């Protein structure tokens, strides 16, 4: 007689190993302890659970990575998800985390070689998932900055909201995302995309080289003066302050900055 532990280990291994079908070939040790009364044989009954397992997890990944799914097509997506689940079964009680290794996994898969940008596209989609339910924050208001005196500006430290990420790619990944599964003539191009949440809505936008430098300095906790100095490496020094001013206005409008409550 199987112990409860052995039964559970056999059951989960078997439903995860096969998506079922007439010749699923479930382990005899498991099939022998399943009742076969009624209209269904033991293997058919186990198969219902196998199909539910794979269908449910496939749907979660299709929801989290809709662009990746559209680019590779239905059959290839199912195949790659099956391989992913075999390598990275869910280890968290919440399905929210199921796709956390998906982008890295795609980078290792030979069958997606025709789509060399796919792993980066997955990273963008995953960043959007993570930003969706990242911690809330009080957005920084323009009035707060307008109230600062001139001598307070050099030491000012700006703080990005928790629901903010930057995705770096060798591909124009935001254009591929926008193409919704039919990217046109993709060519390599170093790209940074900022991903954030404003209210409940998730957005992303390409950050140019200037904005990348400024964001990196802000994320490093640098003072406003140091951020401007960093900008002077990519724009004429005399324009750094006004460029930074423009960036600041855009970031506040987008809701990228938070009040510093600490």
């Amino acid at each position, binding site marked *: 007689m199987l112990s409860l532990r052995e039964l*559970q*280990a056999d059951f*989960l291994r078997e439903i995860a190993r096969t998506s079922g079908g007439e010749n699923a070939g479930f382990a005899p040790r498991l099939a022998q*302890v399943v009742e076969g009364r009624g209209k*269904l044989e033991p293997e058919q009954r186990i198969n219902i*659970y196998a199909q539910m*397992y794979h269908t449910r997890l496939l749907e979660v990944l299709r929801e989290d990575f809709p662009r990746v799914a559209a680019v590779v097509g239905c059959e290839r997506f199912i195949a790659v998800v099956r391989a992913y689940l075999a390598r990275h079964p*869910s280890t968290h*009680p919440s399905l929210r985390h199921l796709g956390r290794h998906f982008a890295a996994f795609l980078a290792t898969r030979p069958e997606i070689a025709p789509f060399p940008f796919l792993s980066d596209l997955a990273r963008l989609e995953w960043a959007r998932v993570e930003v969706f339910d990242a911690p809330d*924050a009080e957005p920084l208001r323009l009035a707060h900055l307008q109230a600062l005196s001139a001598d307070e500006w050099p030491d000012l430290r700006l703080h990005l909201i928790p629901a903010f990420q930057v995705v770096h790619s060798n591909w124009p990944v935001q254009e591929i995302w926008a193409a919704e599964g039919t990217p046109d003539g993709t060519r390599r191009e170093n790209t940074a995309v900022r991903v954030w949440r404003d209210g409940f809505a998730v957005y992303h936008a390409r950050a140019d080289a200037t904005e990348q430098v400024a964001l990196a300095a802000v994320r490093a906790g640098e003072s406003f003066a140091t951020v401007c100095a960093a900008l002077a490496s990519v724009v004429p020094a005399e324009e750094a302050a006004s460029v930074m001013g423009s960036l600041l206005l855009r970031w506040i409008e987008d809701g990228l900055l938070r009040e510093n409550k600490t």
Partner: protein
Amino acid sequence: MAFSVPYLGHGVGLRTQHFPRLWQGTARVDWFEAIAENFMVRGGRPLAALEKARETAPLVLHGVSLSLGSTDPLNLTYLDDLNALIRRCEPAWVSDHLCWGSVGGHYAHDLLPLPYTEEALVHVSERVRAVQEYLGRQILIENVSSYLTFSHSTVPEWEFLAAIAERADCGILLDVNNVYVSAANHGFAAEHYITGVPAGRVGQIHLAGHADMGTYLFDTHDGPVAAPVWDLYRLAVRRCGRVSTLVEWDDKIPEFDILRAEAERAGEIAAAELELPCAKSA
């Protein structure tokens, strides 16, 4: 040992599709049931919706990943997250399922059936007791729909459920649709199940739709409650009295008003069985 929870009336599941109604102030219903795992997040729209729902009506938390029957150690990180959510939204009660969903740290995200043996009885009652001690509150455990049974089970499911509830001193969330589905799939009389659970421990009833797949019934939660399930609900109400009832509708989710009408129908049926004046949802 005793169990009691407040009577909340006839509620619906809190679903993403109906979040806008919360902000419009038109999601009026007796109470909401929220799937706990959907709100174990750090911010954003889900938590804001939970707060709104809490302002609108009483709230209950319903877990799907506690994995009470698993032979893995209890996931204390999960329990801590659940505790944090309980503190945040102060639910009227917390429930999960009489099943297992993980082993070896691997989660199936499904409600998998247990063998109804003495080994499982001892194991699950101890787990329910440990969870209740950790959370500092009694929980309700729900019967799941199933598509297979194990040949080494020694008692029917309703006896197993009753024994767990007594040994662990917990409540029962009686899912009438699950009883109907499992009865059809395994060839037992659904009425035996309803009359076999201890009425005094039934703190909540679930209703839902299912699908006939030809050779078995499938618990789809994607349509209205079927006529024979309403009949079974009548029996459950006659036996258990006034019990908070919730309509689950998780797929092909209809407009909020259709869902609320289904909950109101449950209220009307219960009132008729108990010969009470019919109280419509607010």
